[in-house]
């Protein structure tokens, strides 16, 4: 089954990004496919290449990047939300791409389920 994921909050501040990540990992382990992870609202901050959290803490941006590489997951950051918040190509982490809101609606249509994580 194809599952789409929407992440509405940034890393560290709210648990939404953590929950979405743990959910995505479990879905992949369980043999489901992750159609796309769409980052909206403050969720776009998950795509920042400049985060440098304490070493003994989880590396939220890095693990999204790794998930994208290892499982060919499409990580899409909303362009309008990103511009408002200072995320651009120049500070976009590997594995993420910037695109329009149509990608979220498309995920709703193409995926069998859409799961939203937010505040």
């Amino acid at each position: 089954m194809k599952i789409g994921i929407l992440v509405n909050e940034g890393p560290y501040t709210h648990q939404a990004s953590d929950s979405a990540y743990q959910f995505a990992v479990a879905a992949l382990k369980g043999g489901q496919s992750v159609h796309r992870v769409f980052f909206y609202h403050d969720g776009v901050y998950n795509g920042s290449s400049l985060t440098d959290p304490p070493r003994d803490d989880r590396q939220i941006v890095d693990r999204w990047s790794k998930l994208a590489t290892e499982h060919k997951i499409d990580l899409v950051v909303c362009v309008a939300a990103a511009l408002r918040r200072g995320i651009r190509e120049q500070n976009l982490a590997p594995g993420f791409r910037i695109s329009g809101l149509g990608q979220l609606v498309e995920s709703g249509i193409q995926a069998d389920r859409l799961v939203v994580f937010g505040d």
Partner: protein
Amino acid sequence: MLHTVNKSPFASSTLTQCLNHLAAGAAVLLIEDGVYGATAGTGAGAQIASCLKRFPVYVLGPDLEARGISSNQVVEGVVTVDYTGFVKLVVEHDAVQSWL
């Protein structure tokens, strides 16, 4: 429809509102700070117990553990699941509504 609730019922009216909107085929999954709602002996716990008469209620185990809530504090009848169980619930229900 699988309904997820991620807010503490003591700070937010979200759990109450979710429970007020359940229809046939609904199930509830408490995640993140929403798991506090599963605590037996509280007002929220009573709402959950009442809900259980008509709908299944699940709670995410890793979120319970994170918050130091042991299984014997959880309202009887609430089923604890892990992230794999969360995925399974999503697959088994025709759609998911997140109460944010």
